[in-house]
């Protein structure tokens, strides 16, 4: 009779597995990368004509200088107040003459609704700090997101994120995220 092969001891299996487990526990990073999503404009073709001028009432001018100070529509402003001002500009609830014009547009779910022609123009200095720039961007995106959220609540009774894709599209059409960035100027020292 052939010799029986002895069984492999499995007692140390747990130790080996523990060692691997601890290695992965230590090296793991679970953070999901998140941030502000933006789309850059396409590079203009060299023979492009200058775009037609936009009326002053339709532009929301935000300037940031090298000392991280804000000038919004000709007034000095703090970052905290920017969101309210931007919301007022984009929504223009009272059809103010100094705030942007609206055009009637056919939007699914809503029928014919006035859509603002407003554009937010952001210009920063070469010496502006990146942190301030992101704070300003964040407020502007926040203003538009809040308007969308309000409209979604009013029309569909649901939060914007919980809407169907085409409902979201309709709302995005009414409140477009039009933030244009001008080339920075080199004025503020350094």
């Amino acid at each position, binding site marked *: 009779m052939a010799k029986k092969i002895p069984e492999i001891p499995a007692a140390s299996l747990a130790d080996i597995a523990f060692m691997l487990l601890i290695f992965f526990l230590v090296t793991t990073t679970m953070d999901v990368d998140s*941030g502000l999503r933006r789309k850059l404009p396409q590079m203009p073709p060299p023979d492009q004509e200058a775009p037609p001028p936009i009326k002053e009432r339709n532009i929301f001018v935000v300037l940031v200088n090298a000392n991280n100070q804000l000038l919004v529509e000709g007034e000095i402003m703090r970052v905290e107040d920017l969101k309210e001002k931007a919301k007022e500009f984009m929504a223009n609830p009272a059809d103010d003459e100094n705030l942007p014009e609206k055009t009637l547009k056919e939007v699914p779910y809503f029928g014919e609704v006035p859509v603002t022609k407003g554009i937010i123009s952001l210009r920063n200095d070469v010496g502006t700090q*990146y942190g301030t720039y992101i704070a300003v961007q964040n407020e502007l995106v926040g203003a538009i997101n809040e308007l969308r959220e309000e409209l979604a609540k009013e029309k569909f009774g649901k939060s914007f994120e919980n809407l169907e894709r085409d409902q979201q599209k309709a709302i995005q059409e009414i409140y477009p995220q039009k933030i244009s960035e001008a080339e920075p100027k080199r004025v503020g020292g350094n």
Partner: protein
Amino acid sequence: MSKFRNSGAKELPPISTASLPDIVFMLLFFFMVSTTMREVTLKVKLTVPEATELSKLEKKSLVSYIYVGPPHKQYQKVFGSEPRIQLNDQFANVSDITDYITAEREARDEAEVPSMVTSLKVDEYTTMGIVTDIKQELRKAAALNINYSSRKKVERD
């Protein structure tokens, strides 16, 4: 000696540890699957700014990263203390970005190229000059989807 052994007849049997490896393996697989190893070693100091209106980056495989910040101490002798760009594991110049984007594109499937995102991990205290240069370069390379990497803002009163 035997006095202490078999003293109580009704002693509890020891808990079987036979299933311990299975449990540990289960945990192990969980961590193996959920783990993402840091691919590059950061050579720049980086604190990304805080923001509230965040969106998550869905497909990690489609993201290419550009790091900007002041170099770490050990590199400052060579590269100075002004903010620099880091691509992969090296310091780079603004003009290298086009090549980097092209290389990143070639590594991906052609169908996935339009949904590729460039994540800018930039230090808070960097000035906008360098960021704007990067953005111009990305526009030239037609890599238009960008993401300003930022942390979730913690509410303080």
